[in-house]
């Protein structure tokens, strides 16, 4: 019942995620952060099984940091995305597959391009201008299709994001009280104000 959404602009990528931590019918926490910085310019938003998500994200974060320690430079966005993809592709055919869907927001400091990767729990990967995971995606993608343009500003992207949240509030059975929003750009990863639905 998680929801994550990403929108890529000219020089930024905005990622937003719901903050519910639930198990079956019990809502344990309403301000749980499910996004993790993998390095200075990589942000991972995960949906799916909560425990798997934490294990997966922390494992990936530590290995991407290790790459940086060993080599002296950050892992590039494309390399990190493919590394994460392979990790999930190996996991799906293992004894205990990880049930984690990922949106990876990245800023490639060498080519000076923002990137957004959609990686699902089986290891299917695509580079996308915008994407969403979870049931909320079915409500949101049409809205973003209507209003998206590559040249939109951050404020415009946030207003489109808010339109999606209004729609979820109105028509989606799960009540998301607030959304965690972060942006990745050339300066790094920044926390934006939470959107309270």
């Amino acid at each position, binding site marked *: 019942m998680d929801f994550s959404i990403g929108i890529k602009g000219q020089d930024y990528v905005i990622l937003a995620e719901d903050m519910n931590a639930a198990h079956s019918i019990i809502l344990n926490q309403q301000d749980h952060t499910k996004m993790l910085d993998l390095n200075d310019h990589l942000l991972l938003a995960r949906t799916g099984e909560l425990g798997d998500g934490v294990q997966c994200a922390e494992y990936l974060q530590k290995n991407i940091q290790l790459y940086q320690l060993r080599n002296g430079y950050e892992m590039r966005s494309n390399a990190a995305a493919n590394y994460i993809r392979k990790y999930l*592709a190996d996991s799906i055919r293992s004894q205990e597959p990880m049930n984690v869907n990922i949106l990876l927001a990245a800023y490639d400091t060498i080519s000076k391009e923002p990137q957004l990767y*959609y990686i699902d729990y089986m*290891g*299917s*990967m*695509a580079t996308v201008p915008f994407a969403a995971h979870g049931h909320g995606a079915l409500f949101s*993608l049409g809205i973003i299709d209507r209003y998206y343009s590559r040249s939109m500003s951050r404020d415009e992207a946030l207003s489109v994001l808010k339109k999606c949240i209004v729609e979820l509030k109105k028509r989606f059975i799960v009540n998301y009280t607030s959304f965690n929003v972060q942006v990745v750009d050339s300066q790094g990863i920044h926390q934006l104000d939470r959107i309270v639905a």
Partner: protein
Amino acid sequence: MSIDEYNGCAIVAMVGKDCVALATDTRFGVQRSTITTDFQRVFQMGPRLFVAMSGLVTDAYTVSARLKYRLNLYELRENRPVSPSVFVSMVSNLLYERRFGPYFSTPVIAGLDPTSGKPFIAGFDCIGDPSIGSDFITDGTAGEQLMGMCETFWRPDLNK
């Protein structure tokens, strides 16, 4: 829904006069939802050798990466570009290694022989049975529909 239909695709390869053509759809979907409409399914393996991967996208990436790895090692050892018939054996071997837990993705090869320039196309099933085509190969969820179109319109020695 079958695993082959989870992502869905349409692939067709055709032989022409001293040329081959390979076409794929560019939809990346998850069941009824479309994620992106500019998805690349074709992977270049050599200057005149292309492989299009059908079926499950995660396996399409995995198989094409493993194939490229083996191809690179071959070309480093042999110091020459791979010929299509050898490449077919390579693909077949890679897929059969997973006979009892197969990849849900099948390649369609289209290329020209590096020495003779002769057009070459081939298709496979998910465990590596090769079908070397003299006219056209179709694959994917729209495979049968494409087969019908090809049967109607294809004739030998079509120019590009």
